[in-house]
């Protein structure tokens, strides 16, 4: 983890309100794991004041570059969107607890919505790579967007040659509906053992669901996974201060552990952003 002023090599719009940045940051590219994020200073003044956490889309160790996709949601990201390629950006990272890939993983479901999709691409790339070393992970991807033109990373997954299904709110691409609808359909089809059982995946450590997207989507996905006995990891978002584990501003509520009362809240920047889905208290969405 370092703080570095990294050259912005590329900066372009990839969908409405969504921008891709490529930055030259060899140390970060070397260390970065799927699910981790960078904490980025927007501008150099004091308004907007705080950095913005943005998930990694990709890290190219050979080229020493990292890619990010962010969505313009407020004043900070609006400032970011105006930065021309050729300038430098103050980065802090890579930060956070990445997705965990269990040793015996055979099949991975990746479900992403909107700007939650990029970290799943990074994960898919790692999983596909692990195929060659005897891992043989089957990757199935479910993506959601408002409409066809709002979908991001669709082409990237296509190039990875992983099975990818898309749902859009208006049906302009793929199935009309939600990512959770796609997951429901797919899970009905793929319960190799105990077909017809209520929770076909219970006790199965070879299959795992990875999710990142809007909170209602992840809450519904987590509920579905729980019903099916499918283990799941989710990547969460929260307004963030330091991203170093100090300010305790970015906490989320996790299932209470009776042994330690102060562990009720966990930091998205340190224990997260990736958490086991079953630990997260979803009520606040």
């Amino acid at each position, binding site marked *: 983890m370092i*703080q570095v002023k990294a050259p912005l090599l590329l900066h372009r719009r990839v969908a409405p309100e969504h921008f891709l940045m490529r930055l030259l940051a060899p140390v970060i590219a070397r260390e970065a794991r799927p699910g981790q994020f960078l904490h980025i200073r927007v501008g150099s003044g*004091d*308004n907007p004041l*705080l950095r913005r956490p943005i998930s990694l889309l990709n890290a190219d160790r050979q080229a020493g570059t990292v890619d990010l996709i962010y969505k313009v949601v407020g004043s900070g990201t609006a400032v970011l969107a105006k930065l021309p390629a050729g300038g430098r950006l103050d980065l802090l990272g890579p930060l956070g607890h990445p997705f965990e890939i269990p040793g015996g993983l055979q099949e991975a479901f990746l479900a992403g919505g909107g700007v939650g999709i990029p970290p799943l691409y990074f994960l898919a790339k790692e999983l596909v790579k692990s195929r060659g070393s005897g891992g043989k992970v089957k990757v199935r991807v479910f993506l959601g967007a408002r409409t066809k033109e709002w979908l991001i990373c669709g082409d990237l997954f296509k190039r990875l040659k992983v099975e990818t299904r898309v749902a859009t709110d208006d049906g302009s691409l793929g199935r009309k509906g939600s990512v959770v609808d796609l997951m429901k359909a797919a899970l009905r089809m793929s319960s190799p053992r105990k077909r017809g059982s209520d929770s076909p995946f219970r006790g199965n450590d070879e299959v795992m669901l990875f999710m990142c997207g809007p909170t209602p989507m992840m809450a519904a996905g987590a509920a579905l996974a729980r019903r099916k006995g499918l283990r799941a990891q989710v990547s969460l978002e929260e307004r963030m*201060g330091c991203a170093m584990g*100090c*300010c*305790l501003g970015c*906490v989320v509520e996790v299932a209470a552990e009776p042994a330690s009362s*102060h562990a009720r809240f966990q930091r998205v920047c340190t224990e997260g952003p990736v958490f086991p889905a079953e630990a997260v208290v979803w009520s606040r969405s």
Partner: protein
Amino acid sequence: MKQPDLSIRLGPLNLQNPVMTASGTFGYGPEYHRLYDVNLLGGIVTKSITLKPRPGNPAPRIYETPSGMLNSIGLQNVGVEAFVKTKLPFLRGLRGPKVIVSLAGESVSEYVALARRLDGEKGIDGFELNISCPNCEQGGMEFGVDPRGTARLVKAVAAATRRPLIVKLSPNVTDVVAIARAAAGAGAQILSLINTLVGLAVDPARWKPRIATVTGGLSGPAIRPVALRMVWQVHRALPKIPLIGIGGILTAADAVEFMLCGASAFQVGTANYVNPQAPVEILQGLRTYLTERKLVSAKKLVGGLKVPRVLRGIPKVVAG
């Protein structure tokens, strides 16, 4: 040219330089040690410690505001026993900065018990009493907004420890000088100011407050003018008591403003979130500032604000 002397005396404490980190923004030291050598700092103030562990307030806890941020963490911390076991060893190993442990409690007896518990521990150079946390239902700020409450608490803690005692003042008062005087009279050797200003941010789309506890503490450059005014007021009223200035310091120039208003040292808080290297960059910037002006010592800045003669006699600043 000879390097300027950055060392500062804060009553009983000799700091290698005036750059300290503010409580709650710097963890317990090792977090930022991953980025730079925290031995360079003049002082580190820990996250506030309470007698028992505290889970903290519900989320969301922070929200960005114009040139500032609101927070309502609720003193989440591991409690004094876990602090001694898991946090203090790192601080004990430091050779540069003074280690100040921030204490918070809900009653006088809690503060006293904390001070007693930590008094004999090695590696602690002083305590900062957090009598001004705006985000707790009980205690905290209620001591800090009343001169008698302040005096009662400070007197009790001063009697329970041999270590230097800093009292951190709340800006959420009508007359900060009255509180400062009460703290100094009761045994505080150093005063730090200011803690956060109570504020509120609203989501106009959902008709809801932006943070779960409705109100929170405002920090960052937005509060700097208020902090400077209070430092200046207290310095004029109590010129003998050493002050630590706190409030939206992002750069060396900001720090110089506080020293000119009467602060001998200063704490960097929210800036750690904006630029994790801020404290060391401020230290370097301060060195450059003094060198360029051929000032031999940082002490030359303290209280150097040039105020028109006609205004010097005004005893009190009234808001409005």
